[in-house]
């Protein structure tokens, strides 16, 4: 294991599938969006994910609105999260500053995926690729690895830099499948071997869906996948305990020289997670 990509924490909270944000998007509540963007930055997010998809609303306009609004209060780069290529294209037009990540494409090459890929190549920005294809999400680690490999092949051939490809191996809940966790860990091992250059991206909290005390499962799962090479995390950065775990992880995988960030965080009282 090389751990060559720095751990990346992406704030997940500006997502319209969360009822409060859905309301803020529907009513174009500027202040609610701005406050949450600021809050996530203060909590240590490296990037912020923006998803403005509310059915019955105009996502193309809403995502662009959200981008401009968030960029008025923070310089953090953004993840433009939409299943509508048109919404992403429009959002990119108003986007300023450090390169964003486009989220996402899948192995089921649909309309608009070529556009997203060329946008990512032209703008030299990140691209999230999910390990699912027309047959859905396979519960076999080998099959998902094959989807990952074909996505790698397709995107890098088109000119995307490997380090701009964020492969999402898709974390599934252990509530629905006893071996979902094991399959994921095995997939991580295979991806490290076969696709060492690509970055690995995930929404880790899916693993605990339906479980009691989800935090405990999440906090246990994250160090396990960090150890196996996961490096980009779409997470609730407002979870202080989680951010402390990340600091410890970074020190443990040699990404924190002399553990200075860890020690500094300790002195600032940021590792006190009893609250």
């Amino acid at each position, binding site marked *: 294991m090389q751990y060559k990509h720095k751990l990346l924490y992406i704030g997940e909270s500006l997502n319209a599938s969360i009822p409060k944000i859905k309301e803020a998007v529907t009513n174009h509540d500027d202040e609610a969006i701005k406050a949450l963007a600021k809050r996530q930055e203060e909590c240590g997010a490296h990037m912020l994910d923006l998803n403005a998809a509310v059915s019955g609303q105009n996502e193309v306009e809403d995502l662009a609105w959200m981008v401009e609004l968030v960029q008025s209060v923070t310089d953090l780069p953004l993840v433009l999260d939409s299943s509508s290529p048109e919404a992403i294209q429009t959002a990119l037009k108003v986007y300023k500053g450090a390169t964003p990540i486009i989220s996402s494409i*899948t192995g*089921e090459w649909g309309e608009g995926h070529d556009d997203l890929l060329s946008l990512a190549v032209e703008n030299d920005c990140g691209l999230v690729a999910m390990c699912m294809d027309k047959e859905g999400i396979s519960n076999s680690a080998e099959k998902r690895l094959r989807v990952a490999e074909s996505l790698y092949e397709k995107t890098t051939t088109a000119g995307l830099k490997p380090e701009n490809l964020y492969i999402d191996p898709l974390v599934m809940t252990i509530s629905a499948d006893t071996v979902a966790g094991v399959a994921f860990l095995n997939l991580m091992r295979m991806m490290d071997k076969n696709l060492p250059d690509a970055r690995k991206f995930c929404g880790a909290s899916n693993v605990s869906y339906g*479980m009691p005390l989800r935090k405990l499962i999440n906090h246990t799962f994250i160090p396990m996948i960090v150890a196996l090479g996961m490096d980009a995390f779409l997470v609730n950065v407002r979870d202080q305990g989680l951010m402390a775990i990340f600091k410890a992880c970074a020190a443990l995988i040699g990404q924190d020289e002399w553990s200075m960030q860890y020690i500094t965080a300790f002195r600032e009282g940021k590792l006190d997670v009893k609250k």
Partner: protein
Amino acid sequence: MIRSVLTTRSLSSNKIIFQVLVFLSHKFQEAKLDINQIKETFVKLQSEDAKSQVQAALDEGMDPVEILNGGIIAGLQEVGKKFEEEVYFLAELMMAGKLGEACIEIITPHLPENTGPAKGVVILGAVEGDLHDIGYSLVASQLKLAGYKVHVVGVNVPSMKFVEKAQELNADIIGMSAFLVTTIPNCAEVVKYLVDMNIRDKYKVIIGGAETSAEKAESMGCDGQAENAVEAVKLCDRLLGHA
């Protein structure tokens, strides 16, 4: 065992009577394996015990239809209720589904040929562009256990395929799963096809998935929406007049 007890001369007669009583009470308990016990074992999700009790009940000559309805199905309904009350977690509901399937497998060869027709035929799948299968798989399992005949058409299903399958299998209900804001409108497309082909009233159309709601279902001309697999069974029962 009785003989060995009775022939042990060293035992006092009181002790012998006591031992006989213990033996008989064991015998009595064994015979007491009743339908509620099977149900309770099921509700407690004691997999191995539930399976062996079902087998034991069959061996004892208990009516298989009674074991099925009063034990397994009643147990599943109780588990579903506990899930809705947030006493049981999703993993427990999934486990109960698997246990139910295993018990039904044990019991099926003993069931009379015609235990009555299925409650209805349901087509289930994820709409075009949608690749999530966990949700509808759980719905399929609960519907089957509730007595429905279920045909799963898979993920990423073109709208017309739902219609064709429904016609081919003479379905009662078309159930669609949609998890994304962008794929939900495909549910409306299926309804539109049914209307255009003048067969809308032949089928009940229901939807489910993280981003769906009862209001969306209504606005798209569907007959209902369910939040989870337990509700989906109730919805189908209600739509087909089984409730």
